[in-house]
């Protein structure tokens, strides 16, 4: 069985996964185009890892369908995929370059070629001195880099990274971002999950937000930002006057500072009212919300909906 479009790297249709009666993933739909950098965002325990595991074929969904590079059997496409799991792991007694070659061999790369590439990649990433060292002798950051190199040594078409930035220092996070961009420039599809929004904001064209096993948002980063109205930061000399009606009624000043969401009418009517009403503008800035704000808003809304649904279910149960 295959998916319909050859331009699609991953397609999930209403996939569901339950563990012991608890629904970890609840009817997720995802379509990820080839050649894009796609971020899967969500708070801890939202269902990101379970979703990725289903997409990769490590576990099967209880309901729904998923296609990886056009195939309903993701393992059959494993030689075209690189995967870095959230819980990193390498054989401790292996030499670093051998560990890279082993990971490549798992995905069909001849061992000798993997060893050659492993050495080259380590040297290119400033780990030339560690090539022949055992994994147990490497620092955590170095071991993570080795694992990352092992993920891409076979030059996959699709790379899936589960929380790749966790445990890395700022310097290595920057290196990883560059590596992801480099892969994308080669035409590789990169999908990564994270709960650190800044990385997604810098790297991704499109994102999906997973909260409580559902996807409350998927689309372009800019679309997510547009979910929130711009924020106004205003400082006035006066505290009251006819201009006060242009500011939301529930907005209270902190000293002479006002913070509120830009009204639907826009910037110009607000400015006009402030000037004509003699508010005495000391400073005014209008800030477009970042992805972080959008994420908190969307995830928060989803959590609130879940709480409402749970409360309604409880009430129904009590009534019964």
């Amino acid at each position: 069985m295959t998916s319909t479009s050859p331009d699609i790297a991953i397609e999930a249709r209403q996939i569901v996964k339950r563990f012991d009666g608890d629904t970890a993933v609840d009817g997720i739909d995802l379509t990820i185009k080839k050649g894009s950098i796609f971020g899967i965002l969500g708070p801890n325990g939202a269902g990101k890892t379970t979703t990725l595991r289903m997409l990769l074929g490590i576990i099967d969904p209880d309901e729904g369908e998923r296609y990886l590079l056009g195939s309903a059997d993701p393992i059959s496409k494993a030689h075209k995929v690189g995967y870095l799991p959230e819980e990193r792991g390498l054989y401790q007694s292996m030499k670093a370059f051998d560990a890279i070659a082993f990971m490549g061999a798992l995905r069909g790369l001849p061992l000798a070629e993997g060893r050659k590439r492993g050495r080259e990649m380590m040297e290119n990433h400033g780990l030339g001195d560690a090539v022949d060292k055992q994994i147990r002798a490497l620092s955590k950051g170095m071991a993570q880099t080795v694992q990352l190199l092992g993920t891409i040594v076979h030059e996959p078409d699709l790379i899936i990274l589960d929380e790749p930035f966790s445990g890395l220092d700022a310097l290595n996070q920057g290196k990883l971002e560059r590596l992801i961009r480099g892969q994308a420039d080669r035409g590789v599809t990169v999908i990564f999950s994270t709960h650190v929004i800044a990385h997604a904001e810098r790297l991704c064209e499109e994102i999906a937000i997973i909260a409580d096993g559902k996807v409350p948002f998927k689309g372009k980063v800019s679309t997510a930002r547009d979910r929130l109205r711009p924020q106004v930061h205003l400082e006035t000399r006066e505290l009251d006057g006819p201009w006060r009606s242009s500011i939301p009624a529930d907005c209270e000043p902190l000293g002479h500072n006002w913070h509120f969401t830009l009204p639907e009418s826009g910037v110009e009517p607000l400015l006009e009212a402030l000037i004509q009403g003699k508010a005495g503008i000391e400073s005014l800035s209008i800030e477009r919300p970042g992805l972080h704000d959008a994420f908190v808003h969307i995830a928060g809304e989803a959590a609130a909906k879940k709480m409402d649904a749970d409360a309604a279910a409880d009430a129904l149960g009590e009534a019964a």
Partner: protein
Amino acid sequence: MIENFKEVIRAAFVIARRDFTAIIFSKSFFFFLLGPLFPLIIGLAAGGLGKQVNQDIDRPFIGVALSEGETKKLISARSALAENLGNSTIPELIILPEVAADDPDIQRHLDKATQPLTAIISGTLEKPRLTGTEQDVKRWQGRTALLAETALKGSSPIAVETDYVAATGSSKKRTQLLTAQGGQIVLVLLTMILAGMVLSNLVEEKTNKIIEILAAAIPMDAIFLGKLFAMLGMALVGITVWSTLGAIGLFFILPDLPNLPAPAVGWPIFCLLLVVYFSMAYLLLGSLFLGIGAMATTVREVQTLSMPVTMGQLLVFFLAAMSVTKLGETIEWFAVIFPFSSPFAMIARAAQMDNLWQHGAAILWQALFTLIIIRFSVMLFRRNVMKSGQAARKKSLIARVAGR
């Protein structure tokens, strides 16, 4: 289908190569090779366990074809000697009332005896004749004379006439039984020592979090199969080292090796079958242990599982050992068909029956069952272990094994 199978084999080889080299070149493998020394030392220290086992297996039964009066005297003499010298030093006597003392064709009675007989005493007590293979007759000639002297209560020594036969049906049957039991013990011991090690085989991957990388890259069947092959390879290396050292040692200790009883299928095929059936027993038990061990998340859980697993192995051994003297009976057929005891029962058959086709069928059956166990283990593993979330970690070992 064939492509999938090729891919599974290729991937299994990647796993097997890694595991095999990791084990063979580890320091612990040296201690593994020393492993058989420990039970050997304990066995010797415990008072010649091997000797006792040998006596139990090789208990002689000598048929008595004498006149009724002389037979009674001989039986009384045996009782008296057994009381003074110990029962095990004097051969058991089986009265053969249908055989005349002067029967010219004693060998025929040796062949057709329902109970395997070592030799037959015929003639008279003053001039007894012992008929059997040269090896058996020479071994029991002295004690036959002692029995006759005691029966006659005389002081003059009795000369026992000897009548050698090349081989008798019953002696052949008896010696093949010995080979069957020997082969079975070798198989069981090796499997017990080696297959249990598979229990902890996936713990390294699980504690190092490598399992997810493997599971995302290759079919889970290939992981299990690769691990089994690696451990089998390691076991065969160990057996080669032990048997080579053992053969060299025997050559120096016993340069004139006695003629070993030949199994029904002949020594070369028997040795080949011994290796094949060891491999099958190892794969069968190993796949089961790997599946059970895969459910364990810590070394402690593996240790907990070791005891019931050892007990299970012993039960299989008892079943196989019980069936060895009951060729063709229901219990023996059950041991042949029950997959876990099948290799042990079949090696006993190889010693006692010369038809080869049954081995082909048995090996196919055992291989098929190994694949079934691997499939089932993989299914349990994927369902119960390869999942994220607190629920998986909170589950008890029993629940994980039972798939609940």
